């Protein structure tokens, strides 16, 4: 045990005395995580989408559609000319531009009860923002439907269009020979428009001032439901999503894996020099020497992750919901890093060759883990595939015990997977080292 502790102690002293390695492993992940955290953090407008509005329809309906869009809290709408809107989207200053053409309101009202041509709203969007386009389309649909239907049931345009529709149906009915009989669908439409006309003749009631139909008041159509938005966490007082939490997880994992590479390279350099043989000439087994190196690497990795998250908590408001869960994940990841380092040392032929391959492997592991971009943006098959990537579990585990607000039981599967991978890596390394010694 004295020898094992001495070997671990030696590695800890060596790591702490190497200021460059410390800087690489501690300061860089914090700086980069702070950058990514600030980039992906919700902005002061609560993440509102920048939209340009080109309102060419000057009718009441057009103005009400514009006002409705501006009242959406999820949108940040600015009136623009067509040319300015195009430029703003091209430059990425606005994600979407909505062009409401002249006469849109009336054309839409007409199209509501007939199978004729539908008017088009032109949407110009930044090609990198397809998800945003879908969101804007949804909100635009809601606004147009409520405004146009309100106009149809209560506005002067609606009365005029209803009157015109009834007149056309009457003309069609008179033109049909009595022997042929009237089309029952025309009769049904006539009855409905007549009912609408009666509704329109009722005294007008209070509007909400924004032209949006209110059930039972303006008579316009509205969404048949509302939503109550609630960020789901497991704790009543959890602070919810924090972009820094994910960034600290990702960068912590990445740079600690770099430290793992250095562990492996260090062993290869020791084997090249006389140090490795000198250690093995002592009354210690190969397994003791290797496991001591693994223990020191795991301790260093654990310490680094704790230090990185301490800065995250104190400076960037990262919330650790379960300290036990975090410690479990950090210990598991420490052992995983140690196993990764041993694997590099066992299968790397030379320090130079091993460094290149290990860097590539690390970047792939980090990329697939969701450390750079969250794994939920991956295609479904990639999300499934990355379940075999150990770092994915580390990131998911850290996310679980930080911004998701979950506890140890949620982190347990991730801890288990990390430990299994760590054991497999270490067993492989021990087998390879032992084989070479023979």
């Amino acid at each position: 045990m004295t020898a094992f502790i001495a070997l671990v102690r030696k590695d800890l002293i060596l790591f702490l005395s190497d200021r460059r390695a410390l800087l690489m492993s501690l300061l860089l992940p914090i700086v980069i995580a702070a950058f990514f955290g600030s980039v992906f953090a919700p902005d002061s407008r609560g993440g509102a989408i920048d939209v340009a509005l080109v309102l060419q329809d000057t009718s009441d309906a057009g103005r009400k559609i514009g006002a409705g869009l501006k009242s959406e809290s999820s949108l940040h709408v600015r009136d623009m000319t067509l040319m300015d809107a195009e430029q703003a989207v091209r430059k990425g200053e606005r994600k979407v531009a909505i062009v409401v053409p002249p006469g849109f309101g009336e054309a839409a009202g007409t199209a509501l009860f007939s199978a004729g041509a539908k008017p088009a709203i032109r949407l110009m969007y930044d090609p990198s923002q397809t998800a945003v386009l879908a969101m804007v389309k949804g909100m635009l649909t809601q606004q147009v439907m409520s405004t146009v239907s309100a106009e149809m049931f209560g506005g002067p345009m609606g009365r005029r269009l209803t009157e015109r529709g009834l007149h056309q149906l009457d003309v069609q009915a008179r033109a049909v020979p009595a022997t042929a009989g009237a089309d029952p669908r025309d009769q049904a439409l006539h009855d409905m428009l007549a009912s609408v006309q009666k509704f329109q003749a009722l005294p007008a009631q209070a509007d909400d001032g924004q032209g949006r139909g209110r059930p039972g008041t303006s008579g316009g159509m509205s969404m048949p439901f509302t939503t109550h938005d609630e960020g789901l966490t497991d704790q009543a007082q959890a602070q919810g999503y924090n972009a820094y939490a994910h960034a600290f997880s990702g960068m912590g994992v990445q740079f600690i894996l770099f430290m793992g590479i250095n562990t492996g390279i260090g062993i290869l350099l020791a084997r090249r020099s006389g140090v490795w043989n000198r250690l093995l000439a002592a009354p210690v087994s190969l397994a003791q020497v290797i496991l001591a190196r693994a223990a020191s690497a795991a301790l260093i990795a654990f310490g680094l992750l704790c230090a990185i998250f301490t800065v995250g908590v104190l400076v960037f408001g990262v919330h650790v919901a379960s300290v036990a869960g975090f410690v479990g994940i950090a210990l598991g990841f420490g052992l995983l890093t140690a196993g990764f380092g041993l694997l590099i040392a066992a299968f790397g032929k030379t320090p130079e060759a091993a460094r290149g391959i290990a860097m590539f492997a690390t970047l792939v592991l980090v990329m697939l883990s969701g450390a750079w971009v969250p794994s939920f943006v991956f295609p479904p098959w990639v999300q499934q595939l990355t379940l075999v990537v150990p770092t994915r579990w580390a990131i998911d585990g850290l996310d679980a015990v930080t911004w998701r607000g979950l506890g140890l039981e949620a982190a347990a599967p991730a801890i288990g997977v990390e430990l299994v991978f760590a054991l497999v890596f270490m067993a492989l390394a021990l087998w390879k080292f032992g084989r070479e010694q023979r």
Partner: protein
Amino acid sequence: MSSVLLSVNQLVKSYGARRAVDGVSFKVLAGQTVGLLGPNGAGKSTIVAMLCGLLRPDAGEVFLGGAPVTVGAAAVKRRIGVVPQDLALYEDLSARENLRLFGALYGLKGRALDARIGHVLGQVNLLDRAGDKPLTFSGGMKRRLNIASALMHDPELLVLDEPTVGVDPQSRNAIFDTLQALQAQGRALIYTSHYMEEVERLADHIVIIDHGKVLADDSPAALYRRLNAQAALRIELAEAAPASLVDALAGQHGVTALQATGLTLEIRLREPGDALPVMGWLQQAGCRPLHFATARTSLEEVFLNLTGRTLRD
């Protein structure tokens, strides 16, 4: 008579088709210094690795005090100190921390460890640099610290694999002083080198190795006796010696070979002690030597005699 401390029996080790060590056997007595002499690539380091339990032999055995030396033989390893050819030091740990590590590997701890660190640093004259990192040491100081780390557990047998590689003459002398002090304490040493003068200076028994095989295994005196000439005498005369005198000189006792070139006589002698009678005979024969020099035959010549090539070929 001293007891046998280390016994090496028919060691064989191959790397692929190449046989690096081919049936090597020798013994080391308690308190004896054995020099393993051979050119680079002769197999010395491979033998050392097997002696120290770092490498499994393909065949053969090594015994230390009757106990087999194997890769996992922890008890036996405690009795051996290893000074590898490459520096086995952590350059970023202080000299004291390096020794603390190597002492702890052999189970030393607490005050005993601290006391031993001080003692060993004193042995290699590095006590005043205990807190400094090897990074700041000269090559010779690093080599001495390398030796110190092997002495931490006070081993019965110290195995030194070319411990003076890359060291300046002054530092080499300092290392020899340390090793001679260890010899004086009665510690057994195995010293490998391809520098014959180092082995001549230290060893009281020499094993000459080439191509993985033992060519000779004897004391230096016995090795020299294998040669028909153990000394040389070079004389510069005032005037050229007549042919009759040269013929008569060749027949003198102790003279094994003779070459006369102009005013110079190169005489090979059976033993160094034959030089004085030869000089006296020349004086009686009327020769007037202007200048003369004697030299002892070196291990280089022994090696040349055994292999037909020099050590550095």
